[in-house]
């Protein structure tokens, strides 16, 4: 009995010593570095920032913020960066409703009601928008879909907003007589809000966005998710499925999806920048002057974001915002910090 217990204890001891010795940090600290890292006096140096950063919101902007955050950390930020993907609407609820987040990722501009809510916080917040990239919303079908390569805006409005259209053939008799399987973002998603306004409200000539929203939610065979990844998987699965989400999610699954051209234009960088693609929209991050001043790490992060976003934006899958917009955002940032 005693020998066995001591063997167990010895094994645990040895294992923990080995695990402890494997820690790369401890290996480095035993040596004195021969190159002294320069301690810069740049107030926006990532390594000089105290505290943590909490961002939340859009699933479209989310991956972009995460890529920038990773880069920020690799450049020396010692604190914690937390990014929650919960949808633009939910992100604003956390930014303006409970005041928990420092940055709100948004794929649509902030609404009046949300600005009001922000003012009600103590201390009140006055949201400032920073444009960080351009997104094209890609309307996608599965690669197995053989009958659809191009849609008109009007057709789109009917596909996603008309409750009488259940099968593809209801809209165009040359299409198959199969149920349309729709995959769309949910109501917390900025992509949803934008699409409802741009496509459904305008395409079906509906008075208010609330009516358009009701129409969009009421169509047959629809699945929603705030998580665009779920939508991608859904559309991939059937030749009769159709969905829409940020173009980055399409580019990541290009081998299984086809992006439709809308009235002849595809969601490419050129078309997005020149504005010829119908569903190109700016992507934002929001913060507030009070936060920027009381939490310098947030200001440093946003500055880093604006300076470095174009290095990652193509890889993530979006399109770079025009240089003058980025510079304008930078100016807004500098003004807010004063």
């Amino acid at each position, binding site marked *: 009995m005693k020998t066995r217990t001591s063997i167990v204890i010895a094994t645990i001891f040895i294992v923990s010593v080995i695990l402890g010795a494997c820690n790369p940090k401890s290996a480095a600290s035993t040596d004195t570095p021969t190159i002294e890292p320069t301690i810069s006096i740049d107030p926006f140096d990532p390594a000089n920032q105290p505290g943590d950063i909490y961002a*939340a919101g859009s699933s479209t902007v989310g991956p972009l913020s995460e890529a920038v955050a990773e880069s920020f950390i690799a450049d020396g930020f010692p604190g914690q960066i937390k990014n929650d993907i*919960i*949808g633009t*609407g*939910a*992100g604003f*609820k*956390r930014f303006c*409703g*409970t005041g928990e987040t420092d940055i709100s990722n948004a794929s649509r501009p902030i609404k009046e009601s949300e600005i009001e809510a922000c003012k009600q916080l103590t201390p009140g917040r006055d949201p400032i928008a920073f444009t960080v990239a351009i997104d094209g919303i890609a309307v996608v079908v599965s690669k*197995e879909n053989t009958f659809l390569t191009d849609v008109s805006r009007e057709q789109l409005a009917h596909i996603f907003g008309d409750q009488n259209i259940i099968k593809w053939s209801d809209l165009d008799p040359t299409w198959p007589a*199969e149920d349309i*399987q729709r995959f769309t973002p*949910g*109501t*917390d998603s900025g992509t949803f809000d934008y699409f409802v306004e741009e496509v459904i409200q305008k395409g079906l000539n509906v008075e208010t966005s609330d009516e358009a*929203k*009701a129409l969009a*939610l*009421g169509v047959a*065979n*629809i*699945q*929603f*998710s*705030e*998580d665009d990844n*779920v939508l991608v*998987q*859904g559309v*991939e*699965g*059937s*030749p*009769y499925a159709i969905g829409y989400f940020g173009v980055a999610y399409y580019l990541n699954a290009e081998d299984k999806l086809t992006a439709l051209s809308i009235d002849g234009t595809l969601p490419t960088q050129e078309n997005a920048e020149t504005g010829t693609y119908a569903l190109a929209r700016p992507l934002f991050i929001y913060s507030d002057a009070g936060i920027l001043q009381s939490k310098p790490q947030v200001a440093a992060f946003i500055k880093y974001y604006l300076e470095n976003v174009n290095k990652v934006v193509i890889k993530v899958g979006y399109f770079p915002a025009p240089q003058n917009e980025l510079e304008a955002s930078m100016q807004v940032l500098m003004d807010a910090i004063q």
Partner: protein
Amino acid sequence: MSHISQFQAVQSGVDIRRKPRRTESLIHLVLLLCGLVSVVSTFSLVIVLGREAILFFKLPGVTLSGFLTGTTWLPSIGKYGVLPLITATLITTFFAILVALPLGLFAAIYLSEYASAKTRGVLKPMLEILAGIPSVVYGFFALTFMTPLLRIILGNDTVQVYNMLSAGLVMGIMILPLVCSMSEDALYAVPRSLRDAAYGLGATKAETIFHVVLPAALSGIIASVILAISRAIGETMIVAIAAGSGSSFTFNPLKAAETMTGYIARISGGDVAYDTPEYNAIFAIGSLLFIISLILNVISRRVVSHFREVYE
């Protein structure tokens, strides 16, 4: 006990009755409080669920009958019919039981009637491993293996990427060990004399099992099935990953649909701010789930106690 201490007290002249009692009472109190934590837990559950559920039913346009019979569930535009979520839950549960009941029961019969002690020693741990695997792993299995398999067998067009059948079948595999172990306990409890009497009359093994042992163990088996149903209804991760999002009212198991638990998981993946229709809806559905599982668990225990009494 008291007269022993009195005896000692007489012997040594020291009264030892008082001292232990104070610490004893203290310990008694502490343990009682521990026991009451569970009661507090239940109360908090009832209060939290009930309060928000009442707030939910106070919303304009929401009535209890509308809630339970309406066929559209879209809280953001004011449609509060929970039936689609219930049918989805029932369909996935149905397939789960379809898998778990026969397989679990037959496995239990094999373990208790046929297997040698050595075989049992090998097979039972394997079933325990099956029972111990977290549900998120089953969800991964449903999405990456079961759904593609179903699509190969039944065709890519008939089976959607997210569907209820795949989730239901995998859920059945997950609950199987539960049915098996509870049924096995029930079978084990049947006295040997019953079996011997049947053999003595010339019955074959299968006849003994079906006509003598199973009826005797019936209460335990039914209890295990009811508990399995309760477990299947409350399961979240498998359906959240593989069954679908966005409620749809359909009876076709090859299509996607959202269950009650799947809805709660999806909405809380977003944010659940106070006083939005979705927030209150979560509590209404949560209350419904709580009541259903409560009723099922009570029935299960009643079945065991009632039938067992009659038999003995």
